[in-house]
């Protein structure tokens, strides 16, 4: 009678297998695009995947929006950049220090910010992002202002200097895969469930003993730390950063990635990041007009595919199959 329920270890095995397959594909990819221009783009896909996952943990799992995540990304990049240039620190030391600083900062501002809900939270985080952006522009004695900060050293492991696209690809994707695994583990755990519970019904979660407020702040800080890490990696692979990368528009682009890929899905974040990073490459002729595509995609996805590509495409596929079957029967 009762259908046997899948045990936890079965589920875990299936997920691990999927992840192993994905990692293998990622690691083999350079074989196909050896040295091509696309390698450089794929490095950005990795960085954007990390950032989209960071925002997705907050938005897709905990249900809390942020329109200021580019700010944390920029903070990580600038802290890393300044520590390794002005203070000649080792990049491997600068990255965790930057992450720690950003994490603490996010934790502290998280308390007042996450008391807000919905539209007000959106506006507050947007304001935060813009304040960060203004700081990057105005503290030019540290950041170089609008003209940017250059001469940031590459990362180095023993005698390997990460200065080519292929080497950077492995570096960035190594970290990205780690972030993906980390986030998937989190999502399928006690804490991840509590987060999703807060998303669905904050009051019911609280009644069951979930400290919703603290959990939201924790995940906000974690999300900021991942952004900071991505920012540091960005700074050390590009060796040059300037404020325009970290503005309001990029926060919106991140939001678009998460929504297009699918809220609450880690692979969805990869899909969204990949699509939005590769799209402009294919729309080369339309240089500045990709902004219209973003806007259109956001509107269309929310209206017709609110689950994102990761759920929408299989659903669409099932619908088509069903329709075929029905017309076959008739």
């Amino acid at each position, binding site marked *: *009678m*009762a*259908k046997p*329920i*899948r*045990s*936890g270890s079965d589920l875990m095995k299936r997920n691990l297998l999927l992840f192993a397959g994905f990692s293998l594909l990622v690691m083999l990819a350079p074989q196909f695009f050896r040295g091509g221009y696309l390698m450089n783009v794929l490095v950005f896909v990795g960085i954007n995947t990390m950032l989209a996952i960071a925002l997705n943990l907050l938005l897709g799992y905990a249900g809390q929006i942020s329109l200021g995540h580019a700010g944390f990304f920029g903070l990580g990049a600038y802290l890393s950049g300044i520590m390794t240039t002005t203070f000649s620190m080792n990049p491997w030391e600068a990255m965790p220090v930057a992450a720690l600083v950003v994490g603490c900062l996010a934790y502290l501002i998280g308390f007042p910010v996450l008391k807000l809900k919905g539209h007000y939270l959106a506006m507050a985080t947007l304001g935060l992002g813009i304040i960060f952006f203004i700081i990057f522009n105005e503290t030019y004695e540290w950041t170089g202002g609008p003209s940017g900060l250059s001469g940031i050293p590459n990362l180095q492991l023993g005698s390997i200097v990460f200065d080519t696209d292929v080497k950077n690809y492995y570096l960035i994707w190594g970290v990205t895969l780690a972030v993906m695994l*980390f*986030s998937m*583990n*989190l999502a399928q*755990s*006690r*804490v*991840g*469930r*509590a987060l*999703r*519970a807060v*998303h*669905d*019904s904050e*009051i*019911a*979660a*609280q*009644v*069951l*003993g*979930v*400290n*919703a407020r603290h959990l939201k702040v*924790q*995940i906000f800080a*974690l999300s900021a730390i991942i952004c900071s890490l991505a920012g540091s990696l960005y700074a050390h692979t590009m060796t040059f950063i300037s404020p325009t990368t970290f503005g309001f528009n990029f926060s919106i682009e991140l939001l678009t990635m998460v929504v297009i890929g699918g809220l*609450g899905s880690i692979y969805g974040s990869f899909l969204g990041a990949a699509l939005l990073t590769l799209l402009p490459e294919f729309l080369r002729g339309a240089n500045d007009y990709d902004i219209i595509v973003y806007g259109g995609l956001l509107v269309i996805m929310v209206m017709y595919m609110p689950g994102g590509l990761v759920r929408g495409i299989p659903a669409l596929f099932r619908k088509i199959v069903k329709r075929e079957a029905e017309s076959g029967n008739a």
Partner: protein
Amino acid sequence: MLELSGITQIFGGVTALDAVSFSIAKGDITGVIGPNGAGKTTLFNIISGIYKQTAGTVLLEGKNVSGFSPERLARHAMVRTFQNIELFGGMTVQENVMVGMHTKSSSGLLACALRMPWSSAEERRIREGAVKWLEFTGILDLAEHAAGSLPFGKGRLLEIARALAALPRLILMDEPAAGLNSQETVALAQLIKRIRDLGITVVLVEHDMELVMDICDRIVVLNLGRKLAEGTPREIQECPEVIAAYLGDDD
């Protein structure tokens, strides 16, 4: 088990509850009844920490818990269910119950994300615990379904299973029979008795008089924000004030 004294709640000049006092014995099923607008739900919201009362104290197992947040009360082994069932619709039935075990587990964010051995062991324990409560409420066959797609009656059972997973010593149920058909209500009555047999104290707000008279050991009647009567089901049925209040309400 639970002692209320002088609970008063005033909403912008309107007195919703006026010095309500009563106590609930360990292991009893207590029903709180009263006509619409009697203040039952307000009282529940105060006990479960959702509202903060204007005056009065709540003692839980002798400890003053007035003004405690809901999550803190959960750690003191008190949980509640909602009239309009509040499920986590985006999660599976089993995952819902697993959230119920939040206070009975402790792995932190990093331990979970890094899949530390102790957190994996705990995860197994949570999963097995959830199965146990799904079995207890008879919805194990739905474990893999999305909670959001359950019919109302099953959703009610899931909400109870989820609350039980928190291993409460006191469970508050806000109109558990609301929206159930007569068959489901009979099954619910049995379930509530089995919950009591586990040694869990049950307090329920309910409109279904048949159910209340059938399962409750004691009944508290509220009317217009005041306590009208208190006693065994038989005493309440014969109490003239209660009959008057209910007939008066029936206009």
